[in-house]
């Protein structure tokens, strides 16, 4: 085996160098550049805090930021509330015969692009949409009503487009939960609520956390759904970033906004992990 040691070292660099280049050139340096640009003035002058100052002094900027953060937390909570019973039904209640079919049905829309799914809701909900035609015909509405372009339709759209990223990891964990634990608790007289609180939720915590992190991050960084389904007067923070970078061509201001969004998402994920005592590298596995 001794003759192998030198070759093994050599193979290490074949693995290491491309991976290192990928992470260093495409992840580390671009984000350092984002940080650097955010401290530069838009007219090529030296280091300045003006871009961050603009964020805190213009209410429209920080209000959008707070709104985006709060709505992202709300959407994550709704998604969790819907996903837990669905995952529970598929892993613990449905008969084994339909279980596989339900899994495939869940996974297929997972791969259909966000744009098409949002478009589907647009032709369902808008004033000339399918739902309005239907509701007018059965007499529930006297005339078509605009159901799209408000905060409720936007939240629903965000729940819809991110839901599966919660259900899939929870199904993964819940599937390995031993039925005997639930049976034992039931035999000892535990109520359903107690079983959920004491057994199912604690056991599924890694799946819940990884789902929540991914959903939160997707919603926070979402652009399409708030833009196409949200109200015309209320912006999502990513739209502010887009406007700065593409519309006003103010890359420095846009960088500051981008960096703040990155900071916010890291902070909220870190707090959530601390509260639930989970580790980041284990959660995303």
């Amino acid at each position: 085996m001794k003759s192998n040691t030198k070759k093994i070292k050599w193979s290490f660099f074949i693995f290491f160098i491309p991976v290192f280049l990928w992470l260093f050139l495409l992840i580390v340096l671009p984000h350092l550049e984002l940080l650097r640009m955010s401290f530069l003035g838009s007219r090529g002058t030296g280091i300045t805090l003006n871009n961050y100052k603009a964020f805190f002094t213009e209410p429209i900027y920080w209000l959008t930021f707070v709104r985006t953060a709060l709505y992202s937390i709300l959407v994550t909570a709704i998604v969790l509330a819907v996903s837990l019973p669905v995952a529970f039904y598929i892993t613990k209640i449905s008969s084994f015969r339909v279980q596989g079919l339900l899994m495939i049905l869940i996974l297929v829309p997972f791969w259909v692009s966000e744009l098409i799914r949002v478009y589907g809701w647009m032709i369902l909900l808008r004033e000339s949409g399918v739902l309005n035609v239907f509701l007018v015909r059965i007499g529930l509405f006297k005339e078509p009503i605009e159901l799209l372009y408000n905060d409720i339709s936007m939240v629903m759209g965000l729940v819809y487009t991110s839901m599966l990223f919660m259900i899939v990891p929870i199904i993964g964990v819940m599937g390995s939960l031993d039925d005997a634990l639930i049976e034992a608790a039931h035999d000892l007289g535990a109520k359903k609520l107690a079983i959920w609180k004491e057994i199912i939720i604690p056991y599924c915590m890694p799946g819940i956390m990884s789902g929540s992190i991914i959903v939160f991050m997707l919603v926070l960084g979402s652009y399409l759904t708030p833009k196409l389904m949200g109200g015309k007067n209320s912006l999502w923070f990513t739209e502010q970033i887009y406007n700065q970078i593409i519309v006003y061509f103010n890359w420095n201001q846009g960088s500051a906004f981008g960096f703040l969004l990155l900071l916010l998402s890291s902070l909220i994920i870190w707090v959530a992990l601390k509260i639930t005592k989970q580790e980041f590298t284990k959660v995303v596995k």
Partner: protein
Amino acid sequence: MIRTLPNSKGYLTGFRFFILLFFLFLFAPLIVTMVLAFNNSMFPSLPWKGFTLDWFLSAGPEKIGLFHDRSNLSAIATSFKIALSVSFFSTIIGTLAAFLFEQEDFKFKGLLYFLMIAPLVIPGVILGISILLFTNSIGIFLEDNLGIDLKFLTPSFWLVVIGQFSFITTIVTMVISARLRKFDRTLEEAAFNLGANKFEVIWFITLKYLRPSIIGGAAIAFLMSFENFNTTLFLVGADSTLPINLYQQVRDGSTPVINAISFILIISTSIIAVANLYVGNKKEK
């Protein structure tokens, strides 16, 4: 409570009703989108005016079907080329990364692993901007100091590939790592003892074992690239990809030709997803 315990009728009926509603919610927009692709109307909405294939086949002048729609066809071709390139590069680097993180030990492995999974929690919009800023700065530097003008550093086909590669490689790495982790390393030792060198072992034994996950990773990379919007938005040049092109049409309102495209995309991604699932399950057993 679960299938092995006695359940009240009300509990089961209630749960089934909830699951039915859930699947209705999940599929309604997709089905409505697909059905309206065949409606003989100028708008993607009801009333139903009869079945037609015009939105696929018609050559105009009133209706231009998908197969005669130059802008959408060229966007599909661009997306296809980008997805193939991203899938190719990220599968290679993803495989190397899986070997690096599963089989090698080195200083700062934890830090590098953290960087590798970081793209999962970086919003796609931020990643797009960072790469745009970084490549732009490099481009300016090279032109000012060395007089080299590298076209791929400005928004273009290759910049989209670079941007998508940067985070899709993470997903591919995780898919391949999951399988490599289960690999029985005594097989390698046996081959070493029989006189194989490191590369023969990797080529003939480990990669053979990894093949289903490599194919699966490549398929996932292809799909993720094909439907990516957030990162691509900032990097796209004159040839827009399909999601970008569709977005503009959805935003400004368009004919049911979008439904025709959605129909084809939903059907084909479903086939790829189910095939991928089927292959994955078969190899697991």
